[in-house]
């Protein structure tokens, strides 16, 4: 199975940033925001 090589970042690293690995989550996108206006009483 083909695999890639992870190249080192080719730019100077910023100072004191902590390493971070984040992911996305389907639940945050599994909806449709509706904008409705209450009926005038």
């Amino acid at each position: 199975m083909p695999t890639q090589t992870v190249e080192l970042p080719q730019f100077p690293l910023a100072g004191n940033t902590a390493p971070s690995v984040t992911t996305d989550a389907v639940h945050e996108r599994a909806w449709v925001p509706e904008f409705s206006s209450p009926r005038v009483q």
Partner: protein
Amino acid sequence: MDTESHADLTAGIDLTLGSDPRFGSAEAIEVRNLARYRLGLGVLARHHPHAADRLERLCKADDAELRPVMYDPVLRNAFENDLTALERQAGENGTLVGYLEGGAADVLDGLGPCERLSHPRVRPWPGHAVSWVWTDLEPGSEPERVLAARLEELMAGTLSKNGSGGRVRPDAGMLAGLSRGAELLAELLPNAGAGVLPHISLTGLVRDELADGVLNSFSGGDPLPSAVLLAPERLTDPWMAAETLFHEGLHLKLFDVLRTGSMAADPDQLIPIPWRLRSWTLSRVLFAMHVYAHLLLFRAAAVGAGPDLRARYGEPPATDFVDQATPGSQAAGSGEYTTTVERVTYLAGQASQAYGGMLTAGGRRFVDWLIGAVAPLAPGILPEPLPVQARPRTEVELEVRGYRQAQPVQVCPIPEQRELVAVTPGAPSFQWLNEQAWLIYALCDGRDLSSLRDRYHQAAGPGTDDRLGLGVAELLAARLIVPVGS
């Protein structure tokens, strides 16, 4: 504040909100989404080897060719559903491949598959972004009929179940109103306003009666991606059209941001909303806060609109009123929470203080960035700073034999954003590595810990053992690296 100072203030906030590479810039957000999409096509190719050629061809298309395919609502819905099924190792994962085998992306000429079926073809803001209007669909072949039917099905799935809703075929006046609203938005807010238009692939018109009231507009997450649907009545006044496009385009922008990093760690957390009967999820609070904060800017810019803009588009709204609180809600009796500033102040307090611990680090940065940007427009919006909570240290005893990257490695570097996106082997999920994590990941090449440490210190400087340990822990948790010998 004099006119010039007010204009400078709103222009500055417009630039901040429209240019931030993580949360604002449409171009930067699109780069990350395209990287994710290409990686995802590679994942699908591994699971559907008979379609690998088609998927690889798509993967190698340039951004302008790939973008309309990625943002097509039917294909994007299929892509997200397929990848979710693979990550959960359950469910159908060949839907996108099915559309591609039917020829949906055989021609890469800048037209998305569903747009290709529209007749007449209308692009409402060609000077700003590639987007199309749902006029009518005229499928020719059987695969095209399948696409068209699926788009109708996705839209119908978002309307109320009482059957009162339906699509409206736009007439010339509605189309003109739509374009005029977009032009006004782009003139009023050249960064934050114009910057939502690239996130809108499809605009359609609908009418619907909901339980809570009359539908004004809605936009789609994965169930109807990259699409905005509006009531025609929202287009009769250019200021209302501009504000509605801004509102829904912002939702789509945030969906695109969320594809590249989660914000709410606890999906089920409910938060009471005084102007509504039902509590909202934390995600919904973030979405609403995002829009209300930007509407503060919109309305401030509108108030400061010069005579030329007023002559061309009419007088802007002079009120911060949103709508009445839902009858029966806590705020209904008091008359509170009817304005943008009241609502965004409440939501900001909930997101940053009451429920800030349930956000991811990215979510906390998002809230701080957004509220900090609009604070000059809303006195009192900034909550009292909370004591900084030390991030829980994930102690890991580093393996003396070192680490190697889990196979197969599937990555896409984005050096201009100092990030690398990778796919976790096995049950695939996308992992976004900042530059420090990227460095550690790249150094995990099977050599022992002593070598890893030395090379890391050379790149990151002395005294960085804590960061190395943290990075290794995060990469292990994401299943991107494994100890040597495992």
